[in-house]
């Protein structure tokens, strides 16, 4: 299995709703990432988990709450979002950085994304 699976593909929510995005991989990767991408722009890193521990938080507002319950799953909990949070949310995974192997290291595998619309 060489895929990163994201659900749901599309999500519409109101500003008072609570919802979650889910990401799953079975490649044995121990680093997982959340990115936010606006139309025609590059992805912006939000969070990095390494060995199920949060290692990078790029000063993301607390209305976004990541969770990594096990080595295969990554969630992004959403609460009290704003319309400007509407975007494509991409999940990615890779070999953990502390176990870099020269020949195949540092390649991020991305999921197809969850398109979020906040009304």
């Amino acid at each position: 299995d060489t895929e990163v699976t994201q659900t749901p593909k599309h999500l519409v929510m109101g500003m008072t709703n609570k919802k979650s995005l889910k990401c799953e991989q079975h490649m044995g990767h121990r680093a997982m990432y959340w990115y936010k991408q606006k139309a025609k722009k590059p992805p912006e890193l939000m969070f990095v988990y390494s060995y199920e521990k949060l290692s990078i938080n790029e000063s993301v507002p607390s209305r976004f709450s990541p969770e990594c319950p096990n080595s295969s799953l990554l969630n992004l909990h959403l609460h009290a979002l704003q319309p400007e949070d509407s975007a494509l949310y991409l999940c990615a995974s890779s070999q953990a950085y502390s176990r870099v192997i020269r020949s195949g290291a540092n390649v991020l595998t991305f999921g197809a994304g969850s398109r979020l619309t906040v009304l």
Partner: protein
Amino acid sequence: AQTVTQSQPEMSVQEAETVTLSCTYDTSESDYYLFWYKQPPSRQMILVIRQEAYKQQNATENRFSVNFQKAAKSFSLKISDSQLGDAAMYFCAYRSAKIGANSKLTFGKGITLSVRP
């Protein structure tokens, strides 16, 4: 901090022709990785090609090849025999090879490639 620059926002190529997408980067590190990712309208980011900075030989993957000029900090992507399915947004990206370093992947702004039939 590292930066990646893609100065051309859009390019167009005739089907079956060759096109080159430009990318420059700035870093003080000597060991790093460079990538080209493709994002078609289906929106999934797909790795096209990877280059390790310590390797002098330019990477090649079928119709895709790079021209890696380490001294000039240039990393261009050449697509040969362009196909309609190559139409997408292409991002150049940099990542440090330093163990324990911030594992951030730094992207350029991207270039939209259209392929004319």
